[in-house]
């Protein structure tokens, strides 16, 4: 398939919500080592809230749906990840506008806008050891492969996000709570980069399913 519509978006959100719920303890465990042991709990709380009003949210166009997800996350997640993921979806919404569906390029633009939003809100640079280190290579890979179609581009994005997540594991963190740990944060996988990888994998699988 070559367009991304509201049903695909819904599958994506549901898949992401399911996986966050399944991997809640894993994400929390990662956050125990270099944070405050709540990342899985936070993400699961937010996406449970999203799931609770999915029918209502999905009734809107792509932009409205995405905006609804972003607002819900901002109102329920808290912590660092709430405003960051919330902003991601709000920027997706602005980029989608009132479209009913998005072409591969339009999806790429939206993802790029989401990434930019996260970077502006959190002021993290590459190598600061945050979700940006998974999101940024994910978006880059999507753009590089988008000529091959949405499915291929999303597969490349997911692979790149995972690689980004793993690449920064040896690093010391410079943003977020993990930065308090200094050297002790090295050789721990970042929880936010992990949830962002799950986001790209969910997007890939939701689109592949159709």
């Amino acid at each position, binding site marked *: 398939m070559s367009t991304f519509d509201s049903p695909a978006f819904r599958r994506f959100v549901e898949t992401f919500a399911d996986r966050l719920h399944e991997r809640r303890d894993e994400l929390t465990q990662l956050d125990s080592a270099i944070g405050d042991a709540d990342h899985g*709990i936070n993400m699961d709380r937010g996406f449970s809230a999203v799931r609770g009003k999915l029918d209502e949210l999905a009734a809107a166009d792509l932009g409205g749906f995405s905006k609804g997800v972003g607002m819900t996350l901002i109102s329920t997640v*808290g912590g660092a990840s709430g405003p960051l993921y919330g902003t991601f979806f709000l920027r997706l919404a602005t980029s989608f506008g009132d479209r009913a569906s998005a072409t591969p390029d339009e999806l790429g633009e939206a993802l790029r806008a989401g990434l930019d939003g996260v970077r502006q809100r959190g002021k993290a640079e590459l190598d600061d050891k945050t979700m940006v280190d998974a999101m940024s290579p994910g978006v880059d890979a999507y753009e590089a492969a988008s000529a091959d179609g949405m499915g291929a581009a999303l597969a490349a994005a997911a692979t790149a996000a995972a690689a980004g997540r793993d690449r920064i594991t040896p690093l010391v963190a410079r943003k977020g*709570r993990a930065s308090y740990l200094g050297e002790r944060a090295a050789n721990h996988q970042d929880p936010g980069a992990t949830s962002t990888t799950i986001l790209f994998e969910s997007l890939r699988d939701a689109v592949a399913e159709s």
Partner: protein
Amino acid sequence: MKKLMNAADDMVDEALAGMAAAHPDLIRVIEPNVIVRADAPRQGKVGIISGGGSGHEPMHGGFVGMGMLDAACAGAVFTSPVPDQMLAATKAVDGGAGVLHIVKNYTGDIMNFELAAELAQAEGIEVTSVILADDVAVKDSLYTAGRRGVGGTVLAEKIVGAAAEEGQDLAAVTALCQRVQDNVRSMGMALTSCTVPAAGKPTFEIGDDEMEIGVGIHGEPGRERRKLASADEITEALLTPILDDMPFSSGDKVLAFVNGMGGTPLIELYVIYNKVAQMCADRGVTIERNLVGSYITSLEMAGCSITLLKLDDEMTRLWDAPVHTAALRRGA
């Protein structure tokens, strides 16, 4: 996990319901989990609000009342509250003189308070923010998210709350809050970890002969793990960096605050205070005021933190001013 709790997801709600039941003269709890001073809004008074993750009780909800906070936003355990809460709090306490947000320096708190301030300003309420970042265990550099806001927050809330109570305007209380921030330093340590209720197991494992030095207030591991030491050695490990950082020097007048992390009994805090008093005396630093107790905690973590605030006459006067909250009370 051993806690006096029912379902983990209900813990914060039930504790707030308990607070509301215990202190109806002082506070009311409004949706979404905002503790508001019973008589808010007060016309013409600057509103002072704060908030953060739960699990630090009595901070912040226990500091709502006459002479201190007008409202406190309670997030999930160790998770910054969401902007809806700070917006609701800001609207509930605005008496036309503007609202100060006292924010602890954590990425999540900063971003959520920022979003709320934008929303409040869009609704025509004047909002200022001061960020507390007093934890000397964290290097304040480009390579960190900056110092955490810890014990200094309690002192700021008391002093700034008194200034607002006596009618100082938004610019003045904002400047005062910044002055407290500029003059306060803290450091903490842990003997044990704590367990986030929804996580169900301790955030970190620690041996019977070990301790964490330089912890914050979220059960996070500290800067360094060391062999368990005596109270005097621990006090030195915390207080020396504080004294050196500011630096506090001979002739300075300070407020010394020895804080328990939630699982540490008062007898131990007084043992620590005894050494703090000696060390300050040795440096010629005069402890003009003090506070000893568990005021900013990390669930059931055992450990303590030390905070020193360099006092000026106005701060001392405002520290002494009447306050009537669930956790701090004097002259009322």
